[in-house]
């Protein structure tokens, strides 16, 4: 299709008034969108209780700031158009004074920039993913078995000859690997402030891991619709000092059931 117009971006185009106006708008909007976008979201997410959650929050920050120039660019052009000539009424306005159908430079730039941003997002994501995966193989980790059922979670602890609890207890600064399964339907094991989640599938074990780094009581919720009382399938995780954790573990009655982790070790 022939370009019926003289190209817009020729000569000293950056000195044009409307280009300058859009540029200023762009910078302001980038700062605004980036700041508001990160602050609102990060504040809503609350204080992290593990490095995993800190990573999630950092990812939200990075992606928001990376996306804000693009969003601001579209917004600047949209606002620029709205502030330009507007026409009200039942009959169409006169034709616009140009008939630009194309701009190879703008298109090439747009595609290259969006491809680079895509690559950036991928690399950032892969680095974070690699950290999460590496944690699963940590030799120092303790292994806890998580069983979901309608509508409660049960936890089996290692080295305890069969301690089972409904409220999860974790020692602080200790890597933990969770082996998650379900007795009936699919559930999803979500340690909210710790930033990890993994589905509990019947007949299968799935793994996730986390190192809590803050003492306190946090939330565990089921994040997959699992029937009648799905909304109530939530409980607490108590992160405590290593000594408190050991004391709690010793004080628990022995159910006599060995945990599956030990069964696997014996096999």
């Amino acid at each position: 299709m022939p370009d019926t117009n003289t190209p817009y971006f020729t000569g000293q185009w950056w000195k044009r008034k409307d280009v300058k106006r859009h540029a200023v708008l762009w910078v302001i909007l980038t700062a605004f969108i980036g700041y508001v976008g990160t602050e609102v979201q990060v504040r809503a997410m609350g204080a992290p209780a593990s490095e995993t959650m800190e990573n999630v929050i950092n990812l939200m920050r990075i992606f928001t700031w990376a996306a804000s120039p693009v969003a601001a660019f579209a917004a600047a052009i949209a606002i620029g158009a709205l502030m330009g000539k507007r026409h009200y009424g039942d009959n169409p306005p006169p034709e616009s004074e140009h008939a630009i159908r194309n701009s190879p430079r703008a298109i090439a730039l747009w595609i290259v920039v969006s491809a680079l941003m895509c690559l950036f997002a991928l690399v950032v994501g892969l680095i974070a993913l690699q950290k999460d995966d590496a944690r699963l193989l940590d030799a120092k980790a303790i292994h806890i078995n998580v069983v979901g059922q309608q509508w409660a979670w049960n936890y089996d602890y290692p080295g305890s000859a069969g301690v089972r609890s409904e409220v999860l207890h974790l020692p602080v600064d200790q890597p933990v690997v969770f082996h998650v399964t379900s007795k009936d339907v699919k559930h999803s094991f979500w340690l909210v402030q710790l930033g990890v989640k993994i589905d509990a599938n019947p007949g299968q074990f799935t793994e996730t891991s986390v190192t809590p780094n803050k003492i306190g009581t946090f939330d565990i919720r089921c994040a997959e619709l699992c029937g009648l009382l799905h909304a109530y399938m939530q409980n607490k995780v108590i992160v405590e000092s290593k000594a408190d954790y050991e004391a709690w573990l010793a004080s628990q009655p022995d159910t006599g059931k060995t945990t599956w982790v030990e069964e696997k070790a014996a096999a």
Partner: protein
Amino acid sequence: MTTMMERPTPTSGDAPKVGIIRHLNVFTAFAVGALTAIIVWRLSLALLPADSESAPLFTREDKITLLSMIGWFVGFMTGIGALVAPFRWVMGKDLSHDENMFLAGKDMGTKRYFRYTTDHKVVGIQYLVITMVIFGIGGILAMLIRANLGTPEGGWIHPQAYNSIVGTHGIIMIVGTIIMVTGPFGNYIMPIMIGARDMAFPRLNALSFWLIVAAAIPLIWGQFIGGISTGWSAYNPLAGQAPLGMNGYIMFICIFALSTMVAGANITTTVVRMRAKGMTWNRTPIFIYGVVASVALALPAFPVFFLSQVMSGMDRALGTSFYDTARGGSGWLYENLFWIMGHPEVYVILIPAVAALMEMAPVFTRRPLFSFNVAVMGIAGICGLSVLVWAHHMYISGWAPLLNAPFMLTTELISIPTGMLFLVLIGTLWRGRLWMTVPTMSIFALLWNFMIGGVTGIYLSDVPADAFLHGSMYVTAHFHYTLMGAGLTGALAALVYWFPKMTGRMLDKKLSWISFWLVQIGFNVAFIGMFLVGLQGQPRRVEAYAAIFNKGNLVTSIGAATIMTGMLVLLAAVIGSWRSGVKAPMNPWQAKSLEWTVPNPVPLENFETLPVVTEDVYGYGRKN
């Protein structure tokens, strides 16, 4: 004097010779359907043996329910007249000319809307009305959800009923948004836009619409026998455990998938084969690309959906174990099948809505579409990539952790073609002359909403961030931003834009403006509130929540009520204008595409002489 016999031509005085078709309409369809269902029900009740001790729960009841529903379906399709023509054809005859004219709804007035009418304009109006009905019901269900979430304890709706309301709201809104552009506008406007007299297969066109009506009944039926307590995704093994109402969902999906496949084949063939002389692919309007991309994408997606539900039904009724882990099946199999449909499906919804706005952008800025080629490439790119991203719904399912990285790659790649659609829209706005109408402002609304929907999609595409966000209200808010904020905004703009051609009257300007602002403001209030509770940690599909989520849910409820008000205003505008609005001129927007060259009301077969196209439809702007 000549002895030659003149060929007899039917005059308007003669009664046309029309066989059994004359007696068939929606009422006979409901009657025959109900009767067949009752007969099948009684027969299966009497004949089916009792379950053996070892059989899983519900099997006999499931068989009876499914058989009765199939009976309904066959009866309804017979009663509406879908089988008349195939039957004649098998007998070596075919429909007569009179019968074909009757089927096309010639000189029939409003009765044609209640029959198996083949005229694409009748089908378009039927789709428009049923879409509005679906949105009405889905909206009421949404308000019930919000009402129950008014307080943290929830509780005035029983959890089972609440889960069912959530599931039903989900699935019918998905269906409503799937048909909201390609149904009314793809059927009514598209054939005129490409300069055709009708669709390639007019009877299939009628079939695709009446299949949706046939599908609706099992879904409603299901509500009375236990409901759909699984959410719209109906994951197994939860669906296997759910009450009999689940069979309603299964039948609904199977019949709706048939409708989508039929419509997809029909629309694709029409666009490929029946464009006017001279309408090369470079001169084909971008809306046509959007419609064809949407239905063509549904062609591989919906057979998979159909299959997944057939297997689900067999697990329930016939004791198979496709999804039963204890007997060798896998819930992950269901998730895979579901999302192989489910991710293309969101683009089935989104693409035609965005394409409709791209079609309107040049009209309301009075300049050419910026880079038609990039728009086509963007649509094609989305279609291609959208079938490769499904497992991003399963990052945390544990199905294949090693595949998380590749699926993160494909998911993030899709932002490139999506960005192209943004480029086309902002490029068209750049230095345009804005004609301030509801469709124009809808372009801005789409840019805003789709930007939020798109950027939140980037967080969700990232595996570690998704491990926090998945299954939370954040996801719910995200897909409402894409499907409703972008999709529905495009569809409502399309309604305002094409209303004059479809009804012959202008849509009330004042009311449509009021509705636009109420819906857009309400929408952003509602779903920004939902983002926040998601980030705070509220899971999806809960009927009660911790007290910290109270504020965000209140905000969402206020926003939802505002949307509802806005939609009611729009409904009033549509009904009022349809009945007694200002008569529309032939081309109220001074647009250049072919649908504006036919008179109001559009005559049967649209064009007296078929148009010849010599340039594309975007020749606006002064050529310097």
